[in-house]
């Protein structure tokens, strides 16, 4: 087990090298650069000499490989560089965005669990009855509406009509996180409750459920102790994928609610060709996904002993 974890973590090194190299190259292929983007935003024209000087200052005049090696060398010395746009340190900027992203991730995942698992189970238990139909229609609606639309609807009703929450959620607090988290949770819950319903239905059709019923075991006991436990592997797989995606930030929701997380930072960095910031984000995403997948695999072993890790022979 220890060897397995260490081996998986060591795999991060080539992954990081490959994806940072690829992203570095792809950003150059996308054209333009931070100097030109800034000039375009201001709507002013500056001389080629000024542009060249600005490029030289940022090191953008050097060949691609030289730029990448310089960035990598600095990274190995613990220096992620400074933002081309704000001039602030990339590491400290990135770290300052993490609390908002973590809080949004935790609250939206909790809301998703609270909504999707009970409703998914209820829909399965009441299959093809009114409750099931209502839940499925709600799920269909939730899946159909894009995040930005849900965000605007919530904002309109809860912030403008009811005045329960502020439109601007720029301070990272439990109160301000509710609307952005709810926006994300609605879309995720709509997707998950159908998965939960399908998994529960699958389990309910198995022989052991009929056997338990024949032996007089209460249905609620079978549901809670056997069926739900069996469904957990599916649910955890879905949730961990979502956690990975949420930790990478949700640019649209963050922008609309002015929630200052890493997603909005990443999109701004891409728009402005802020390469050091983009590289930091790419590394963050790689680390998240490797770690989240590792934790998921480990959790399978705990939840379902039939699953062996690291290719161990049964």
């Amino acid at each position: 087990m220890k060897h397995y974890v260490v081996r998986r973590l060591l795999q991060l090194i080539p992954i990081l090298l490959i994806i940072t190299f690829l992203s570095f190259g792809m950003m150059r292929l996308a054209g333009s650069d931070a100097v030109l983007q800034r000039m375009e935003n201001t709507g002013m024209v500056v001389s080629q000499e000024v542009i060249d000087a600005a490029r030289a200052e940022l090191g953008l005049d050097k060949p691609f490989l030289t730029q990448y090696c310089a960035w990598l060398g600095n990274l190995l010395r613990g220096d992620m560089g400074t933002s081309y746009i704000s001039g602030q340190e990339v590491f400290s900027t990135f770290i300052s965005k993490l609390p908002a992203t973590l809080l949004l991730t935790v609250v939206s995942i909790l809301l998703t669990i609270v909504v999707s698992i009970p409703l998914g189970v209820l829909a399965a238990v009441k299959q093809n009855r009114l409750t099931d139909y209502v839940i499925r229609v709600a799920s269909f609606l939730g899946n159909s509406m894009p995040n930005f639309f849900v965000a605007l609807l919530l904002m309109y009703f809860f912030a403008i009509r009811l005045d329960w929450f502020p439109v601007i959620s720029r301070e990272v607090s439990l109160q301000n996180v509710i609307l952005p988290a709810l926006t994300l949770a609605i879309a995720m819950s709509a997707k998950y409750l159908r998965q939960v319903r399908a998994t529960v239905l699958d389990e309910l059709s198995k022989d052991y459920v009929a056997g338990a019923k024949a032996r007089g075991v209460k249905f609620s006991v079978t549901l809670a102790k056997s069926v739900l436990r069996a469904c957990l592997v599916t649910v955890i797989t879905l949730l961990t994928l979502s956690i990975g995606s949420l930790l990478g930030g949700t640019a649209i929701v963050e922008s609309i609610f002015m929630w200052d997380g890493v997603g909005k930072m990443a999109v701004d960095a891409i728009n402005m060709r802020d390469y050091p910031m983009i590289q930091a984000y790419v590394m963050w995403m790689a680390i998240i996904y490797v770690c989240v997948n590792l934790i998921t695999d480990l959790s399978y072993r705990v939840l379902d002993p039939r699953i062996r890790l690291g290719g161990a022979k049964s």
Partner: protein
Amino acid sequence: MKTEKRILTLLMAVCLALGALAGCSSNEEASDGGTAGTTFVLGDTTFNAENEEPDVNPHNAYSGWACIRYGIGETLFRYSDTMEIEPWLATEYELVDELTWRITLRDGVTFSSGRALDGQAVKECLEHLIEVHDRARGDLMIDTITADSQTVTITTTEPRPTLLNYLSDPYGCIIDMEVGITEDGIVVGTGPYIVTSLVTREELNLVKNENYWDGEPGFDNVTVLTISDGDTLTMALQSGEIDGAYGMPYASYPLFENEDYTFSSTATSRVFFVHMNFESEIIQDDAVRQAIAMGIDKERFVEDLLDGNGYPAMGVYPDNFSFGGDAVTAKGYDPDGAKAILEEAGWVDTDGDGIREKEGQTLTIRWLTYPSRQELPLLAESVQATLGEIGFEVIINSTADHNSIRVDPMAWDVYASAMVTAPTGDPSYFFSTHCLDSSAVNNGHYHSDELEALAAELDETFDTDRRAELAVEMQQIILDDNAFVFCSHLQMSMISQSDVTGLVAHPCDFYEITVDLRPAE
């Protein structure tokens, strides 16, 4: 049934928890910033590092815009509503000779630090500016500055007729260099408000300057919030969390066109325009350029695609400039006339496919533009339709990579872009950057001997009336050559709650929060 009840109970508990959290919320703090007295909250889409405005230090990039817009700093001269230079911190100037300007400063002005504004303070500020700010150094061409009590004498390295215009640029805000510039980019100016805190891309907090020289500021506190999303800005104004908004999306305007809000709009010198590529064989044909100029329906573009939120352009400058608007004549939308010109030049549709040909070449133009200005892709689509009716095939390339493409004269025929043509109110900027052999972005390689001669004269002309005449003549030359087609000017609007007065849009876009901003009586 029991399971259902449990689940319903759980969901109700979630709702109650949400309600409880909502109960904790309060919009009061947002609207008053947690400070005493009256507070004005402005939502602004542009105050951020992406626009080179990371702070309010006028000596840093374009941060001077934030310094002057939010009432922190003031310049020696300023622009009137008709974009003419008028005194501000200065009272008068004297052109001693072509290289020497003597500027007299206003008495009784103090920085918010308490220091009196005098010649020495201005000298320290301008010397620091040209030391650290490349653009200002190139614009101002200052050789020496000498201070004597309330007088400053500036000599330039070469004749600089536009010196006062450049001193009115936001980078020319006079700040107290004895206090200096903090690490956060906070400065001390002479304006009606004083910075108390600044978080880049988030918020700027200001308090009233009790010793302001030009009257009493109307609010005790001002907060500027950077709100990059247009929908959020809209809802924040609707909910009353902000009192005024800059950068509202056009689509939201109807929500505020009622008695609860005050609109202030003006035409700015930001223009959406077309460059012709004189290296392109097809564009070298006079008839083709003329037909393009006559085939763009500016009125319909503004009315239909921009929902009326713009002004059809005649020339380089809008009509609030003395040398703008109808001071020049440009070809209007005339599809029949365009067709006749093309026919006469030999461009005819021989195969009936709707696209004209001449000597085996189809009338196809490659239209290069970019999407970061929402108006430009709309303009491209509008032109594709109207020129299509005349017999053109328009191939649109709307790309963020336009800057690298436009430097290759073989890669495009027509380039549509947006720019501020007169940021300092003076006409020379557009010509010097776009139309001359020496221009930085004359990517279409346009050349006119007559224009070059007039530009040389403009560079040496100090008389403002003559400068205006030259600007008209020069515009007319490029319009007659169909070297550029000016489609529309940006309408800049600011919206405020009806209980606020004095948030007024200005054609130069520099002045937002002024001493006149106050609660309505």
